[in-house]
C-alpha cells in the first residue's frame, strides 16, 4: 500500500493486482472513518472551545469598581456619573476630576478604593478604564438621541451593570480590537437579552421593532451615513 504510487505509475498489464491493492480492506476503511472522526472532533473542539479562548484576550480592569455601592449613594442614577454634556455629547466613563469630588482621600475600607486613591488620585493620573460598550470608530452613536429623545433606559443596551458589585473581565478581540460585549458572548449570535450584543443587526432589530425614525436628524433620510460618518 505504501508503494501504491509506484505501482500506478509502472503497472499497466497487472491491472488485477493493482486494483486489489487500491481497494481498502476492512481495517483500513475503519482507519479512514476514524481519521475523519478525529479530524471532525478535533476541529469542532478547536473551533468551539479553543478558538474563542484564543480569539479574546482577557484583561482585568485597573480598579474593581462597585457599581451597586455607588448607585446607592448618588441621587440621579446612572446619569450622576455618566451624563450628557451641555453640547449633547456623552461623557462616557467618568474622569478623575469627577471622582475626586468624593475620593480626595480614602473614604471607606475597601482595598480597591485605597489602590485607586494611592495610584491615581494622588498621582493625578487618569484611570485607564476598559470600556465594555465602546463601538468601533466607524460607528456614530448618539446617546442623546436614544436616552433623551427616545427616552430609552440604560439597561436595554447595557444590561444590569449598574447592580454589579464587581467589574467583570474585559475580553478584547485580538483581531478587531473590540470588546466581547459589543460582539456578543455567543460566537454564533445567540442572544437572550437585548443587551447581549451591540452589533449593527441589534441596532436595526430594535429600530425596526420600534418603527423608530432611522433617518438623520438633519435630513430625515435613511442611509449608511446616518451611523457611519
Amino acid at each position, binding site marked *: 500500500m*505504501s508503494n501504491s504510487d509506484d505501482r500506478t505509475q509502472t503497472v499497466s498489464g497487472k491491472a488485477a493486482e493493482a486494483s486489489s491493492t487500491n481497494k481498502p480492506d476492512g481495517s483500513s476503511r475503519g482507519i479512514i472513518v476514524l481519521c475523519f472522526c478525529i479530524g471532525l472532533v478535533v476541529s469542532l473542539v*478547536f473551533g468551539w472551545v479553543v478558538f474563542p479562548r484564543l480569539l479574546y484576550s482577557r484583561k482585568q480592569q485597573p480598579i474593581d469598581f462597585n457599581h451597586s455601592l455607588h448607585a446607592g449613594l448618588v441621587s440621579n442614577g446612572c446619569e450622576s456619573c455618566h451624563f450628557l454634556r451641555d453640547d449633547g455629547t456623552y461623557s462616557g466613563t467618568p474622569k478623575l476630576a469627577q471622582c475626586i469630588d468624593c475620593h480626595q482621600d480614602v473614604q471607606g475600607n475597601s482595598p480597591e478604593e485605597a489602590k485607586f486613591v494611592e495610584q491615581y488620585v494622588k498621582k493625578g493620573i487618569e484611570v485607564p478604564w476598559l470600556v465594555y460598550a465602546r463601538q468601533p470608530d466607524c460607528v456614530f452613536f448618539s446617546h442623546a438621541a436614544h436616552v433623551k429623545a427616545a427616552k430609552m433606559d440604560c439597561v436595554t443596551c447595557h444590561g444590569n451593570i449598574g447592580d454589579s458589585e464587581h467589574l467583570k473581565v474585559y475580553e478584547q478581540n485580538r483581531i478587531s480590537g473590540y470588546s466581547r460585549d459589543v460582539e456578543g458572548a455567543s460566537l454564533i449570535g445567540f442572544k437572550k437579552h437585548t443587551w447581549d450584543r451591540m452589533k449593527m443587526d441589534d441596532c436595526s432589530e430594535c429600530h425596526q421593532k420600534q418603527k423608530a425614525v432611522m433617518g438623520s436628524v438633519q435630513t430625515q433620510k435613511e442611509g449608511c451615513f446616518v451611523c457611519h460618518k
Partner: protein
Amino acid sequence: MKIDRRSFLSLGIGVAAGTAFSPLPWKLMDDVSIWTQNWPWTPVPAKGESTYVNSVCTLCPGSCGISVRKVDDRGVKIEGMKGHPVNQGGICALGLAGLQLLYSPDRIKTPLKRSGKRGEGKWVSISWDQAISEVAGKLKELRTGGQAHTVAGITGGGPNTLSRLFKRFLAAYGSPNFFNTPSIDNSYRLALQMMNGATPDATVGLDLENTDFILSFGCGLLDGWGSPVHMFKTNTAWRKTQARVIQIEPRLSRTAAKAYQWIPITPGSEGALALGIANVLITESLYRKDFVDNYTSGFEGVVNASGELQKGFKQHVLDNFSPKAVSEITGLDPAAITLLAREFAKAKAPIALFGRGQGKLPGSMDEALSIHALNMLMGAINQKGGIYALPTPDCQAWPAVPPDAVADSGVKEPRLDGAPSDVYSRLNQLPPAVLSGKPYPLNVLLVMEANPLYTMSNSKSVQEAFNKIPLVVSFSSFMDETAQNSDLILPNHIYLERQEDAPLPAGFSKPVISLSKAVFKPLHNTRHAGDTLILLAKGLGGSVAEALPWKDFEACLKQAMGDKMESLQKTGYWINTGAVFPDGKTTFTTPSGKFEFASSAFCPGFTPVKIEGDASYPLLMIPYDTMRLASGYTANPPFDTKILEETILLHQDGLIEINPKTAQSMGLSENDRVLLQTPRGQANVLIHLEEGIMPGVIALPRGLGHTAYDAYIAGKGVNLNGLTGPIADPLSGLDAAWGIKAKLSKA
C-alpha cells in the same frame, strides 16, 4: 494498521467539516472585515470633552478668527470663529488643515546647525544657548568691524508687532536692510499715497459690502484675493444685493466662472482697458463731475516743475485711449468697451479693483494708477462702497531707539535694494545686489516667516545669491527651501503655539486687530522668534540690548497693544467700532491738497510691462492662483494637496493649461508630456486642454514644485518661480511682471 494517504485525506475532510460547523471561519471573516474598517493605524480624534480656544489664523494675510477644538491637550479641529468681524465663522481649506502643520512629523524640533555642505541636509542639534551665542557672536564681530549694515533681515509676515520688533532690532543694530515681502498691498498703498495723499503706513480700506458693481481687473476675488474668507462672505452678500462682478482676465478662473460677466483680454493690457473706460466716461460725460471738479486736481491740466501748464489726465486720455485705440491693445471690441463703461457709470456705487490672482506680486504701478483713476472718476474715494485709506491702529509707541554711533552710521548706508526706505522694500532687487556685491557685500541674512528661495521669482539667481551670503540664519519651524539652505536654524513656534497680534486683514473695511494665542503648549524645543530677537539683542549688549529692553515678547506685545490688550485677550479681537469708515472726510496731504489724477510727478498712462522673451518663445505664460494651493511661506498641507484637481496635479506631475486650439496647432493633446521653456528656466509638465484660456496663453499654478518641506509636497509639480523673473517697475521699483514668454515642445 497502516496510516496511508486516504487516512490523511479523510482526516483533512474531517477537519474541514468540523471547522465549517464551528464558528471559527465565520467569526474570523467577520472580525477581519471589521478590522479592515478600523485600521489601527488610521488616526482618529481623541475621545473626551471638547473645549474651544479662540485665536486667529495667520497662514495668509486674511487674519480670520478661528476656534480650535481640543480634547484635553490634543487639537482635533480648527473651525472659523463665529462672530469674528472678518470671516464670520467661515474658514478656508488651508486654515482647516492647520493642525497638520502643528503635528507635522517634519517640523524642526530644536535649534540646528549645518554640519555638511549647505543644502546637503546634514544638521546637528544644538542648544538654544549655543544657537543664540553663535548668531550674536557673528553679529557682534561684524558690528565691531563697522560692518553692521551688511546684515539684512527678511520677513514674510505682515505689519505686526513681531515685524516691527525685527525692524527695530536691525535699526538698533545698525542695518538699513529690513525687507518685508512686497505684494499688491504695497501697490494699493502707493496708489493711495500718490493720488489720495494717504500716509505711507495707512492700508487700503475697501467697503466692498456696499458696492454694487465690481470691475475686477484680474483679481481672484474667489481665488484667495485680499482676506479670502471675507471675500467669500462678501460674494454671498453680493448675490443677495445683486451686485455685479465683471471679471477681466485672460483665463476663466473660479472668480471669472462665478462672475456676472467674464471679459477675457490680451494679458497685460488691463491698464489700457481702464483708460479706455475712462475715455468713454469723459467723452460721454458719465463721470461724477461734482466730485472731480471739487475734490481733484490734475484732471484738466498739470503745472509742471518749471511752471508750465501741461496736459491733464482728461486730455491725455482723450488723445490716446479712444475705444478704437484701446481695442487694438486689448483685443476687445470698441463697442464692448463703451458698453462696459456705461454699465460702470450706471451703477450706484461702482468700484475698480486691481491685483491679479491673490495679489502675490505688486504689479505695474502705471496699471494700478490707471485703474484707480476710475475710482476717482466715479468719486468712489472715501465714500460708502468705495476705497479709502485705513489708518493703522495706533500702537503704543515704544521708547525711541537709543542713539548709538555705530547704529547711526550703519542705517545711513544705502539699502541693498536701492529703495529709499523699508516701507517699499524691493525684495526683488536684493539678489542682483548680493550677486554683484554692490553697493556692498551681504554678510548675514536673517529670514523670519518667509521662504524667499521658493517664493521669489528667478529661483536660480536667488539660489546663486544665497550661495554668496556667508551666514544665513532661518527662524523657520519647517524645513522649507530657505531653511534647508541656511547655516543655522532657530525655530520659531508655529502660529498655534505663539501669542502675537495678527496684521490687519488685507482689503478689509475696518481697522481690526486679532490676537493669535498660544492654543497649544509648544510641542518641540522651539522658541518664539520675538523672544529669540530679544535674546540676540541681550547677547549683543549695549545700545542694542537697551533698544529691546523687554523681558520677553509678551511684555513687548503688551506694551505695544496698550489698552487694546484686554479686549484682545477677552474676545480675541479688537475693532475700532467708534470710528466710521469710510468717514467721507476729505483729508489729503497731496501737494495740491486735493485728490490728484496727475501731477508733475506722474500721470496714469499705459506703459506695457516688457515681458521677457524673444520671438523664439511663441506663447505667453501667466501664473494662476487657487484656494487649494498655498503658495507663500506656508506650503500646502497634505489635506489640501489631496483635494487638488487632476487638472492641476496628476500624481507627481504638474499640468499646464492651454487652449485646445493652440494645443492642436502644436500637435498636443491632453496629458501629453511636454518640455516647458522660458528665458528663466525649463521644466517637464503635462498638457491640460482648457477652453477657458485664451489661445496663445498658457497658465501654471502657484504653489507646487517644492524641493523641501516633506514627502507630502516635495517633488510634486513645478515651481512657477523657477520659470519666471522679476521686472522692476519704473515708478515703484517693485516687481511688475505678470508673466513670461514661453515655448512648449514634446518631451
